[in-house]
Structures are given as structure tokens and as C-alpha cells.
């Protein structure tokens, strides 16, 4: 085997591991901690708090939060039917995140795929893809969602599809524009001169350059989608009671905004912190995966 080592993968470890780089970014660590809290809440909401989140106690209606004399479940207050806000927040985490993630994931995959194709091949198909995206952008998101959900009936899967379709044009346009630029770069020609075919060029040589930008857009869209879902749930076309979601909780609490601020504030805070955590993690991830930016996350004095 000459002087070449047995295990070439081991040598590529000149760059620090993801965990090491995560530790260097305190904001990303905070974001991860919050997401861990959300994950625990999500599991609890599906298991131990399942009963408490729906148990009505009319004697304990609209109790204010932060009265630590009372039961733990009432620490964040109770709603107009005396249900624990804490338990409902946990119970609502699952549906809220499931809808947001599947909608963003679906639009990311479909939009990126279409954008890569239209940007790389261009031609008539590329024009059709772009103009279709323009048409979707030109139509108000909420109006489209209202029409579709009114016709097909409000269900979680319809909600996800509507949200994914209305968010998709952003990815199509962004991927298209980025690919148009990247495919003219010399290393794409170089790979082609080595005999790489279209599939390999798009997936192996172009997509990794484009992906960080798209993932950043996706993390921003998570927030957007959660808020649109909240709006649709408020209008009665999103998640249907007795199912719960953070957006629906905000909507239901609106009637009591003057008397019981905690009904809207806590779910609103949950939406904000969670989307912010995703944005921070996305920004860290972009730095960590970019070979030219990665040094920012390396311990001082070990720059290669």
C-alpha cells in the first residue's frame, strides 16, 4: 500500500467536528437548548400531559400565571375553561411543529428541485416553471388558502399542501437565480470536462453551493408558516379544535386579550423563540458547512 495510510477518512479530520464547532457559538448552543426544551414539551404533551391539556375546571377559569402556591400545571395560568396553559402549550407543540416542518420541508424539496431544473436547463420548461411560480406569488397567500381549504375542507394534510404550494415560489426563484450563476463557474466546466453527467453536476457540484442559501430561507419560512397557520386556524380553516396548535391558542386567546394576556402571550412567545432558535441554528450551520467561513468556529490558535 506504499506510504499511503490505511484509512484515508481519518486524515480528512483536519477540520473540527460539528459538536466542537457548535460549542464555539454560544447563541447556537442556546438555540439548541431551547429546541431540546421544546422536544421534551412535545413528548410530554403527547404522553403525561395529554389528559391535563383537555381537562376542564370551570372553578379555575382564567387564573393568572406565576402564582407558585398553586399546582405546577397552573403556573402559566389557565384559560377560559380552566385548562392548564402549560399543558396546552406542550400539547400544541406537536401539531404546530409537524405542520410547519412538513410544509417547509415539502416546499423546500419541491421548490429547490424545480429551481435547479429551470436554472440548469433553462429553455421552455424553465420558463414555464418560473412563470408558474410568479403566478402563485401574484395570488394572495391567505386568499388562496381560504379558497382551497373551503373547497377541500380543512384538514391537516390540506393545510400542509396549501402552505407548501404558497411558499414554494421563493425556493424556485432563489434556486433558479443561484444555479444560473453557479453553473457558469469554471469548476462546473472542469467537472464536465472530467466526464460528469447532468445529474452528477446538478446534485454533487452545484447543489452544495446553493443549499446553504436555501436552508437559510427555509429557516425564515418556518416562522412565516407558523404564523400563517395561526391565522388560518383563527379563521377556522386551519387546525380544528379540539386539536391544538400554538397559532390556534393565540387565536383563541384574542377574545380575552384585555383580561387574560397570558392566553396569547405564552403561545406567541413559544412561536417566536422556536422560530428564532431555528434561524440561529441555520446561521450556525451555514458557517459550519462553508469551508471558507468554518475557521470562525474553530478554537483559537489551531487555524490550519
Amino acid at each position: 500500500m506504499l506510504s499511503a495510510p490505511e484509512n484515508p477518512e481519518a486524515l480528512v479530520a483536519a477540520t473540527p467536528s460539528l459538536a466542537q464547532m457548535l460549542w464555539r457559538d454560544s447563541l447556537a448552543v442556546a438555540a439548541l437548548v431551547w429546541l431540546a426544551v421544546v422536544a421534551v414539551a412535545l413528548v410530554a404533551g403527547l404522553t403525561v400531559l395529554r389528559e391535563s391539556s383537555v381537562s376542564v375546571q370551570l372553578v379555575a377559569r382564567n387564573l393568572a400565571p406565576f402564582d407558585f402556591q398553586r399546582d405546577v400545571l397552573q403556573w402559566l395560568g389557565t384559560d377560559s375553561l380552566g385548562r392548564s396553559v402549560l399543558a396546552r402549550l406542550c400539547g400544541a407543540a406537536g401539531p404546530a411543529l409537524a405542520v410547519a416542518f412538513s410544509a417547509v420541508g415539502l416546499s423546500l424539496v419541491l421548490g429547490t428541485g424545480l429551481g435547479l431544473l429551470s436554472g440548469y436547463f433553462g429553455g421552455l420548461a424553465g420558463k414555464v416553471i418560473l412563470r408558474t411560480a410568479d403566478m402563485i406569488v401574484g395570488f394572495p397567500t391567505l386568499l388562496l388558502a381560504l379558497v382551497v381549504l373551503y373547497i377541500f375542507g380543512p384538514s391537516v394534510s390540506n393545510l400542509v399542501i396549501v402552505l407548501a404550494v404558497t411558499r414554494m415560489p421563493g425556493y424556485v426563484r432563489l434556486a433558479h437565480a443561484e444555479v444560473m450563476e453557479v453553473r457558469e463557474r469554471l469548476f462546473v466546466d472542469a467537472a464536465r470536462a472530467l466526464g460528469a453527467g447532468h445529474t452528477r453536476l446538478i446534485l454533487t457540484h452545484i447543489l452544495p453551493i446553493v443549499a446553504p442559501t436555501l436552508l437559510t430561507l427555509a429557516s425564515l419560512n418556518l416562522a412565516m408558516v407558523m404564523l400563517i397557520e395561526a391565522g388560518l386556524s383563527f379563521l377556522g380553516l386551519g387546525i380544528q379544535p379540539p386539536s391544538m396548535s400554538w397559532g390556534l391558542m393565540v387565536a383563541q386567546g384574542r377574545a380575552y386579550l384585555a383580561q387574560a394576556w397570558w392566553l396569547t402571550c405564552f403561545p406567541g412567545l413559544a412561536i417566536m423563540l422556536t422560530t428564532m432558535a431555528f434561524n440561529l441554528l441555520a446561521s450556525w450551520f451555514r458557517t459550519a458547512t462553508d469551508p471558507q467561513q468554518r475557521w470562525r468556529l474553530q478554537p483559537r490558535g489551531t487555524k490550519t
Partner: protein
Amino acid sequence: MTLDPRGSILDIRDLHVSFRTSGSPVTVLNGVTFQVARGEVLALLGESGSGKSVTAAATMGLIEQPPGSIDRGAILFDGVNLLGLSPADHRRLCGERLSLVFQDALAALNPVYPVGWQIAEVFRIHGRADRKTAALESIKLMEAVGIPAAAERAGHYPHQFSGGMCQRIMIAMAIALQPELIIADEPTTALDVTIQAQIVELLKALRARTGASLVLITHDLGLVAELADRVVVMYGGRVVEEAGVHDIFARPLHPYTQALLASQPRMDRSNAELRPIRGIPPNPAAPLTGCAFHPRCPRAEARCAQEAPADQMIAPGRRSACHFAAEMLA
């Protein structure tokens, strides 16, 4: 003129390439014809815009159509017309039997992958080795092109290498599958002089070892003298002269080649003034009638502006596209 394709690995015949622009199509190659024999180093010499790189791009299937268009001609590689192959069949040859070294090596490497991975990519594209073997092979190749601590450096990214090292990595990729023909498009232009010399030495050594044919695209006469066996001079999308390397320097037959040589500084003639070629290179969007060089040619006569000179074989292995070639030889 008659050709014997058996001896040549690459045989380009009457190649016409044009590009569609907002106006009329611009013809950049206007009947390029030359051959590359097995094992030889052919220098493709000419100034910027003479069509050297487009010839290479056409051979490697890198001309996008549209906007480009290959209007006429043939590129025979080992007897097979590359222009008649399907894109997939053409790709199978590229990287495996013919390869290209780019001028700007840093830009030709993908910034998001370690260089070892990129060299190994050649093996993966052609299904020649599994991941682990490919990784080992890429380290061996890096050693072969003279990169110190290759095993460690394989994990580094292109921006962590100097220009000369990037060029070595490009060369490693080009020789990975032991191709029969390597086209080097100005491999030393972007490098400083000492690094240029190292790359020239490397190319020489690799050529001696692999016996591959090399097409050296350059406007550097020093590089031509150092490496080439034969020289093809291009001007305005045409071949204007072809000769052995000794003849080109000793007795250039085309006024353009003569002017090009006269414009170079020479160590052995200390006080000689440099003589630039007056005028500007031809604009391919506004083609001239007659000989493309006539507005700049010291020998031009009325006839040169009227009729394009034929590409004539004037001696064994020598051709020139000038009306006065025969007189100049006499």
C-alpha cells in the same frame, strides 16, 4: 490535402464554430485543421481571441449549444468523430481518454470539497474504483505531482492552496485515468515565473512517464521552445502556420509568426528594440475579406484584402496560409 489518421490521436478537420449574440452570429473558428500525433507535444500558439481555447472547448464538448454552434467540420479522436457522438458517449471519453487542464486552477476546483475528494471524483465518475481505493489513489496522484505531505493535504480545501499547488491538483485530476491526450489550456499563465518553471518540469516529467500526447495552448514562446515538438499558429480563428518547433523559431514562414517572434525580448540580442505588432487583433463580429492579418501585415498587397490565402502545404510537415509562403521559403 491528404491526411493519414492512423498516426494521429487527434485530428481536427475544417472546424467552424460560431456564437449567437444579440446581433448576427459571430464566427470564432473559421476552418481550423490540424493533427496531433501519438506521444507528441503540440503547441497551439496565438494571441487572445485567436480561437485556441474554443478549439479545446469544442474537443471537450464544453461548447453550450446554444449560444454556441459547431457549424462544420470534424474532430476525430482515435478515428472517432467526437462531434457525431451522443453527449453521454462523449462524456465517457472525457476524463478517461482525453482530459483538460484549465488556466485558472483555483476557479476550476469546487470550493466546498476537499481536494482529495475532487481528485477521487474522477474515479467515481468513470466507475473505476470504490470510495476507499479512489481516496488512496488520489493521495498517490498528489504525491506524483509533487505535493508535499499529500496524505494530510488531501483533506484541505482549494482556498488553502497556492496557485501553483492548485495547478498541480488540476494536473493530478487530468492524469488520473492515464488519458491518451491531455489538453493544457495556458497552464502556466496565472502563475509567477518560478512556479511556471516547476509546472513545466512537472509536465515534462509526466509526459516522459505516461507517453500521453499533449496539446499545449499558450502564447508563451518560452514554453513552446521548452516543451513542444510541433507548433500550430492560430490567428483570427484560422491556422496560419504549422511547423516543427525548430523551424518556427529558425525560419517562420507566415508574416504573423514573424511579427510575433520579433515582438519578444531576446537574451542573445541585448540592444535590439522590441517590435510590437501594430494594429489590433481582428474583431470576430466584423470579419474582414481576404486574409485576416492583412491590415497589420507588413507584406500586404492589394490581393491580400481581396482573396483569402489557401492553407498550403509548402514543405513536408510545414504549412502556411499566406500568398507569399512559397516565395519566403525560396
